[in-house]
């Protein structure tokens, strides 16, 4: 009879522009995109990854640490992770990390995970909706020297140092058994992410990083200055950890733009247009005329 054990999970998440709902407002007349019109959101499949980690904690005990790399605004997704049940959150933020491709990103994440120390499971979403590369998970697993399970949909069994996972991809499924530690990339069909808990939201609503202090002082005039706010947050375990390159054991040549073998040569905004266009009224008459025209042109039989 194997001993029941607990599992320490790390979940990697990303704040992304919501590219799924690009409406007319976001597109400019020239066919370029007004990125600032897109809201920044928690990458959808990263929520599924977080849910998978939280449900393991619910069943077996252990901890869930959430890491994100990004600008200071990315603290928002970390608060969201706290509201949903994460135990610890870390923001990797440094100019030296900026401009990273998937290679440099996975290297930075590897260094952060090694700093955390012990872990059993690493979770990522299958892919992020801004880049859609699905590369960071496998690249990170290689750098950590652990096996990977991509397209993970369900943990069928977790016992001792092994887990059984159902993978689900286009046109197929697979059942695999893997030794820990390992990395999973989680698909959107895996689960229904739990909403933020009201209690945790109240407990963690003040969680902040130092660059947010000036804004917060205006909101909470009861704090005299940044020092007193910082002291309060520290005492109440509400300081969100921010790690820079100096906090990690890194080779700086492998970070950010400098550590990225791929370079963007050019970017094109695609403008697709049709020459002839006709407006049809959404009325019975309008539709009937349309059908008649399509029949006449042998588009509809």
């Amino acid at each position, binding site marked *: 009879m194997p001993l029941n054990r607990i599992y320490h999970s790390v979940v990697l998440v990303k704040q992304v522009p919501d590219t799924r709902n690009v409406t007319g407002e976001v597109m400019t007349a020239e066919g370029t*995109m007004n990125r600032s019109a897109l809201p920044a959101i928690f990458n959808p499949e990263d929520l599924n990854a977080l849910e998978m980690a939280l449900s393991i904690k619910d069943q077996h005990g252990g901890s869930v640490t959430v890491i994100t790399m990004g600008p200071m605004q990315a603290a928002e997704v970390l608060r969201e992770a706290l509201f949903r049940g994460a135990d610890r959150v870390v923001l990797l933020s440094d100019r030296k990390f900026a401009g990273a491709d998937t290679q440099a990103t996975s290297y930075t994440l590897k260094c952060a995970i090694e700093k955390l120390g012990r872990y059993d499971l690493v979770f990522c979403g299958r892919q992020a909706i801004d*880049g*859609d590369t699905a590369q960071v998970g496998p690249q990170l697993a290689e750098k950590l020297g652990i096996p990977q399970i991509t397209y993970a949909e369900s943990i069928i069994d977790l016992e001792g140092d092994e887990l059984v996972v159902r993978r689900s*991809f286009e046109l197929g499924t697979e059942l*695999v058994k893997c030794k820990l530690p390992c990395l999973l990339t989680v698909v959107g069909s895996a689960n229904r992410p739990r909403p933020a808990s009201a209690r945790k939201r109240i407990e963690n609503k003040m969680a902040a990083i130092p660059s947010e202090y000036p804004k917060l002082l205006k909101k909470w005039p009861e704090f005299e200055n940044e020092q007193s706010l910082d002291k309060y947050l520290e005492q109440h375990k509400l300081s969100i950890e921010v790690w820079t390159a100096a906090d990690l054991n890194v080779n700086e040549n492998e970070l950010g733009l400098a550590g990225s*073998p791929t370079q963007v*040569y050019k970017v094109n905004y695609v403008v697709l247009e049709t020459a002839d266009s006709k407006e049809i009224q959404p009325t019975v008459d309008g539709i009937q005329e349309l059908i008649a025209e399509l029949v006449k042109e042998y588009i509809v039989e």
Partner: protein
Amino acid sequence: MTAERNIWVFIEQENQHIAEVSLELLGKGAEIARQLGSEVWAVLCGDAVGNLAERVIQHGADHVLLAEDRELGIYRTLPYSRVLTNLARQWKPYIFLIGATPVGRDLAPRIASALKVGLTADCTDLQIGDYVSKKEQVVYKDLLYQVRPAFGGNIIATIVNPKTRPQMATVREGVMRRGEPNPNRKGRVERVKVAFEPTDFALRVLSRETREPTVRLKDAAVIVAAGAGVDSPEEFELVRELANVLGGEVGASRAAVDAGFISREHQIGQTGSTVRPRLYIAAGISGAIQHRAGMDQSSKIIAINTDPNAPIFQIAHYKIVGDVAEVLPMLIKSLREKAK
């Protein structure tokens, strides 16, 4: 012939069946090799798959590296990445192409990470060209331009790997045309030794099921596709009904697939199928580039959307500004009456 400019193509096979995209890549690889004055090398891994080498040569390979081992029978990340990483270290190819299938997207980043080289995902086009680095004041000759949609498909980015080799890319199925096999083509087959580490077997496949696609959007004459504006099961039923009346297939934008109304197989766009039907009806689809690029070659496009500024209208031949819940029943009724 310049050996250090060889193009490698990973041949994905399962149960003796070569993935369509691998054959497409052999054709594209041959085209690039002609430009560079080099060769296409295919890497064929599996358990007793040597009989496939001839077919690989007919589709464009000059040289086949054949890695056969029982441990390579069913695809697993670690044994495959071990073999391919070692081969790439030994031979130093100039370019390494892999299909952007579930296997390719699992394998390619693992290899690129081990080799510390650049990798571009889900390319829709590949070309050879020069790259001028203004920062370094250097011209990199004959790089691989890796063209891919980014930012949810709203932009098309051209990526290069100026310094690291091989230049790695995964390429989507269906975007390159597969050539006809040439039975007179000659090529060499070279068996290579494989060696593993005990840690390569940390994962075991207990069972694997694959199925044939149930929808053939590529060949459909009429497609009725649903987007985010179709947001209830009832409205989705209207989409199915209209497709049915027209004898067409049901398609979907990414938003509709993500919302869970329909399986990913029906997705049209850069991350789904590319289609060219006679008639395309876009119901409640806003028309992100990611979607439009997959259907803008349709002969006639009817778009229905409540937002008069929706990008889909830029390419629609017939614009209907209105609610799908009202317009679709009118279309269905009108078509049924015509049939009588």
